[in-house]
């Protein structure tokens, strides 16, 4: 399906890159304390997935992957909307968006 030409980077490179980005995002979620930064890390994970999609789509010469990316982006936008709203609300009450201060419930 994929005719390798001289200058096209092989798909695996993209996948590896996306995996790296994904892991970085994961680490970010695990170690960041600022809600917004965590949130951005999540976005990073999503977009690494997008990268993988596009790469695969290219290698298959198939449109599905790219369409999926559209949807991911859209949904991500919706998540941003909700997420930011939540963060703002919390900032209003707590004057801080350090998620480690959100531990009134436990056990």
């Amino acid at each position, binding site marked *: 399906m994929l005719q390798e030409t001289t*200058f096209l980077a092989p798909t695996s490179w993209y996948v590896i890159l996306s995996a790296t980005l994904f892991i970085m995002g994961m680490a970010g979620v695990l170690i960041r304390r600022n809600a917004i930064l965590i949130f951005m890390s999540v976005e990073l994970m999503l977009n690494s997935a997008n990268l993988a999609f596009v790469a695969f789509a290219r290698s298959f010469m198939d449109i599905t992957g790219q369409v999926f990316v*559209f949807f991911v*982006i*859209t949904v991500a*936008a*919706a998540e*941003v*909307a909700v997420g*930011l*709203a939540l963060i*703002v609300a919390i900032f*209003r009450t707590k004057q801080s968006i350090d998620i480690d201060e959100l531990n009134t419930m436990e056990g």
Partner: protein
Amino acid sequence: MLIEQYLPIAILLAIAIVLSLIVVFISRIMGPFRPTAKKLSPYESGMTPMGPAVRRFPVKFYLVAVLFILFDVEVIFLLPYSILVQDLGVYGLITVSIFLTVLTIGFIYEWKKGALEWE
């Protein structure tokens, strides 16, 4: 297509960068430089500056940003459509109008909720 065809772009880039650097630093290089507190203070059209230059933005901007994102996204879907608008014909028209209706609902909602009133 071959890698050579990228060459003009590369050259253009190089020139752009160099020029911008020159523009930035030429005054520093040419002109005299005797800083005083007044000179360094941020320029507020003659008034004495009040407060730090960097301030928190009011939450409103978050709201605007969010709204922007939402409506920004619709472009993603409209762009491909606009390219194929001829081929897609009625089918495409209907589909896109559904899509836009949904967006409009959102728009009406935030309008009525007063998200758009600035003050």
